């Protein structure tokens, strides 16, 4: 049995990051919005699917935060991670995704404490269902996606799904000086979804 590990990507991310920051000569804000979703339960999630999820949603964020920290320290900058309501609440059928986002939330909070003495803030936003390509890229068919969006009107108390620009506005705020005393937040932006309980 062999386990393929793409160490090239680590290497390329490091080099790419270094070159990017060398070109701009500073870094003030890191926004980790890259994300991956796929369905799967405790019974049918393959190790490969688990690894792929953690690599995109958690490991790459960890590495970029680590690379960014010394630069953000110089500028008293900040980090905003795009998490999910699935980091705060538990849902069946998207096990690895939920775990990766819960991990991301804890990564956010721990790093917030560790970087606070350096005046670097670290926050996350936790959106509910937002209309993006992520679900269809994760394998959901167009008809299923339409049904999912329709059903989402009932699972979000405000009666609708979110738009990317609404999340962008919150990210922009958390990254701004207006949020200068906010750190370690995992900010719900989900039309009230995280408040709900089945009844």
């Amino acid at each position: 049995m062999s386990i393929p590990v793409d160490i090239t990507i680590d290497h390329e991310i490091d080099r790419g990051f270094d070159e990017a920051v060398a070109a701009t000569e500073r870094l003030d804000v890191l926004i980790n919005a890259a994300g991956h979703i796929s369905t799967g339960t405790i019974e049918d999630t393959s190790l490969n699917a688990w690894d792929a999820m953690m690599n995109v949603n958690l490991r790459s964020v960890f590495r970029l935060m680590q690379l960014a920290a010394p630069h953000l320290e110089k500028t008293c900058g900040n980090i905003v991670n795009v998490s999910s309501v699935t980091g705060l609440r538990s849902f069946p059928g998207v096990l690895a995704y939920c775990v990766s986002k819960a991990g991301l939330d804890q990564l956010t909070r721990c790093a917030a404490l560790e970087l606070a003495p350096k005046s670097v803030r670290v926050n996350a936003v936790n959106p509910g269902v937002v209309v993006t390509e992520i679900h269809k890229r994760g394998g959901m068919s167009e008809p299923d996606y339409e049904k999912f969006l329709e059903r989402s009107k009932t699972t979000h108390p405000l009666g609708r799904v979110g738009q990317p620009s609404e999340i962008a506005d919150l990210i922009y705020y958390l990254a701004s000086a207006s949020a200068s005393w906010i750190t370690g937040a995992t900010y719900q932006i989900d039309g009230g979804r995280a408040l709900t309980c089945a009844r």
Partner: protein
Amino acid sequence: MAIYWVTVRFAEEINRTEVQLAIERTGINESGKIIVNFDALVSIWRPSIFFFFMSVGSGETAMKDDRVIMITGATSGIGRATAKRFASTSAKIICIGRNRMALAEVKVKSNLPEGPP
């Protein structure tokens, strides 16, 4: 022009001329919107990571922001919307994406600088 620097990091070597041609097909449309020709860029990309830099909102109406903002997942969804949100300021934006997050174009607002900042 919005893009003033492009650096591409690949597992495989990419012909720099191809990259340059793709960038040159980036332009401003009749409505004054900038069109970043991602189709052209994506078509030459192999699985890996790319970075591009843009600084768009440096016209007089843009909110002043001297910061450098790095955004991953910037080619679609929330990352893309966030890039556009910052593009209304004069902040410099480092966009990071992967080719499977291909999209046809990113339209950003007008009032653009003539040349690289």
